[in-house]
C-alpha cells in the first residue's frame, strides 16, 4: 500500500470538514475522489499534503506515519500536491517555476531528467519558458502547476480539480496527461467534479458527501451505482 488514510478527521476553525475518512491507494493506481462542493475533497488532499492539520486519524505513506508533518517535508518524502488554485509563482518565469520544483535536488541529472519528462508531456511549456507564469492561459497554468509538481519527482501526485477553469479542448489534454503520468510509474490521486471523464481513466473511486465516504469501489462499480448515475452522471 502506497498511501493509507485511516479514520481521518480534520476541522477548520472549529468546523469539521472531513470526518472518519479511510482510504487507501496502491502503487501505480489512479484513484478518483469525487463529491459535490464542500464535501471535503480539498481538505482531504490538504491534510495528506501537510497543509491542514488533522484532528484525529492516521496517514501512512510507504508504511510510515506522516500525519502532522510539515508540508515541505511531505513534498520531500515524495508526495506532490497541485492545489485547486494552482499556487504558481506568477511573477516568475515558466522556467523559474519549473526549476523551483527541483529545488530539493542538487545533482544536475535529478533536475534535467524530470524536465525532459515534463516537456514531453506538455510541449507548449517549452515554448513559453521565458514568459511569466501569471501571463499564461488557464490551461497552460494548470500544465505548469502539474509540471512543477512532477519536478519534485513524486511517487504520489495529488491533483485538485485540474479541469477547473480550463477550455474544454485542454481538459482532454489534461486527462490524457494524467494517464501518461501514471504510465511513468507515478501514482495519482485525483479530485474531480467531472466524474464521468475521471472514471474513464481511474482504477478506483471514492465518493464523499459532507465530509464522509458514502461510496467506494472500482471505477466500473461506481459508474454503475444507481445513485451515482442519477446524482452525478445524469443518466
Amino acid at each position: 500500500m502506497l498511501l493509507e488514510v485511516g479514520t481521518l478527521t480534520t476541522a477548520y476553525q472549529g468546523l469539521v470538514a472531513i470526518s472518519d475518512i479511510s482510504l487507501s491507494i496502491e502503487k501505480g493506481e489512479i484513484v478518483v475522489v469525487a463529491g459535490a462542493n464542500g464535501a471535503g475533497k480539498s481538505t482531504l488532499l490538504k491534510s495528506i499534503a501537510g497543509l491542514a492539520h488533522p484532528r484525529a486519524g492516521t496517514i501512512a505513506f510507504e508504511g510510515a506515519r506522516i500525519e502532522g508533518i510539515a508540508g515541505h517535508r511531505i513534498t520531500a518524502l515524495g508526495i506532490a500536491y497541485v492545489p485547486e488554485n494552482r499556487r504558481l509563482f506568477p511573477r516568475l518565469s515558466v522556467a523559474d517555476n519549473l526549476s523551483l520544483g527541483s529545488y530539493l535536488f542538487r545533482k544536475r541529472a535529478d533536475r534535467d531528467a524530470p524536465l525532459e519528462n515534463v516537456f514531453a508531456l506538455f510541449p507548449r511549456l517549452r515554448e513559453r519558458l521565458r514568459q511569466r507564469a501569471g501571463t499564461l492561459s488557464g490551461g497552460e497554468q494548470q500544465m505548469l502547476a502539474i509540471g512543477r509538481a512532477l519536478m519534485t519527482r513524486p511517487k504520489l501526485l495529488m491533483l485538485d480539480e485540474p479541469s477547473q477553469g480550463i477550455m474544454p479542448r485542454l481538459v482532454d489534454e489534461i486527462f490524457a496527461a494524467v494517464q501518461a503520468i501514471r504510465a511513468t510509474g507515478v501514482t495519482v490521486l485525483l479530485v474531480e467534479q467531472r466524474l464521468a471523464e475521471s472514471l474513464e481513466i481511474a482504477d478506483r473511486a471514492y465518493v464523499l458527501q459532507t465530509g464522509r465516504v458514502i461510496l467506494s469501489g472500482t471505477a466500473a462499480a461506481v459508474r454503475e451505482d444507481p445513485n451515482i448515475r442519477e446524482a452525478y452522471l445524469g443518466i
Partner: protein
Amino acid sequence: MTATALLQVFASGLMTGLIYGLVASGLSLIFGLMEVVNFAHGEFLMLAMFATFGLVVFTGIDPGLLAPLVAAAMFVFGAAVYALVIRFAMRVETNRGMVQIFATFGLSILMQGAAQYLFSPDYRSIRTSWLGERTLHVGGVFLPWPLLFGGLVSIATFGGLYLVMTRTAFGKALEATREDQGAVALVGIDCNRMFALGWGLGAALVGLAGAVLAVFYYVFPGVGASFSLIAYVTVALGGFGSVFGALAAGIVVGLVEAFTAVVLPPELKSLGIYALYLVIVFLRPAGLFGKF
C-alpha cells in the same frame, strides 16, 4: 557656483547616497520577503558599528578588512532575531501587524538600552583606520577615502546581491517565498528557513553598512536613529520591498541632501529629503520603482 564645486557636491552626494542605499537595502529586503517593517533596523546598524569598533579595538585590524566578519556576525544575529522574536510575532492570530510593529519597536528600545548600559552613551570613533585621514584628489574634486570606500562596498554588495538573487537556487527560493510564502512548501522549501535566511541576509547587509560607517562616523547607542529615518524614507521612495529600488532611492536621497546643503544652511540639509519624500508620496505612493 563653479563647475568644480558642483562636481564636488555631486561626487560626495553620490557616495553618501550609495551608503544610504546599502543601509536601506536590508530593511527593504525583509519587508519585501514577509511584509514586516523592522523598526529595530537602525539598532541593527548601531550594533554593527559597535561590533566594528570593538573588533578594531581588540584586534587592531583595519575596519575596512573587518567588514565581511561583521556582516557574517550580523547574519547570525539577524537569523536569531527571526527565530527568537519575529517567528512568534507572526504566529499570533489577531492584530498581527500591530504585534509585529511593537515586537520590532520593543527590540529597538531593548538594543538601545543595552548599548547604553554596556557601552555608555558616549560618542566614540575609530582613529586607527588606514583609510582614516586620506583623501582622493581628482580634477579639483576631493573625496575622503572612507566615503569612497563606503560607496565602493555598496556597489560591490549590490552587484553580489544581484547575482545571488538571479543566478542561485537560494535567490530563486527567496523570490518564490516573497511571491507566495504558502506555496513554497509545494516544492519542498521550508518558508520558516527562508525567513530566517532573509533576516540573516538583511542584517548582514546593514552590517556591511555599519562597518563602512564606523570608519568615519561617530559610534554611539543612539546612532541608529539618524540613519534609520533616512532608511525609511529611502525604502518608501524606492518602493517598499524593492531592494534595487532602495539603491536608486539611496542615491537620490544622497544627492538631494548634498545639494540642499548648498542652498540652505547645513543644519537644514535633511529638509530637501523630506520635501522630496512628501512629493513622491503624493505623486507616486508606491515609490519610484515597483517591486524588485
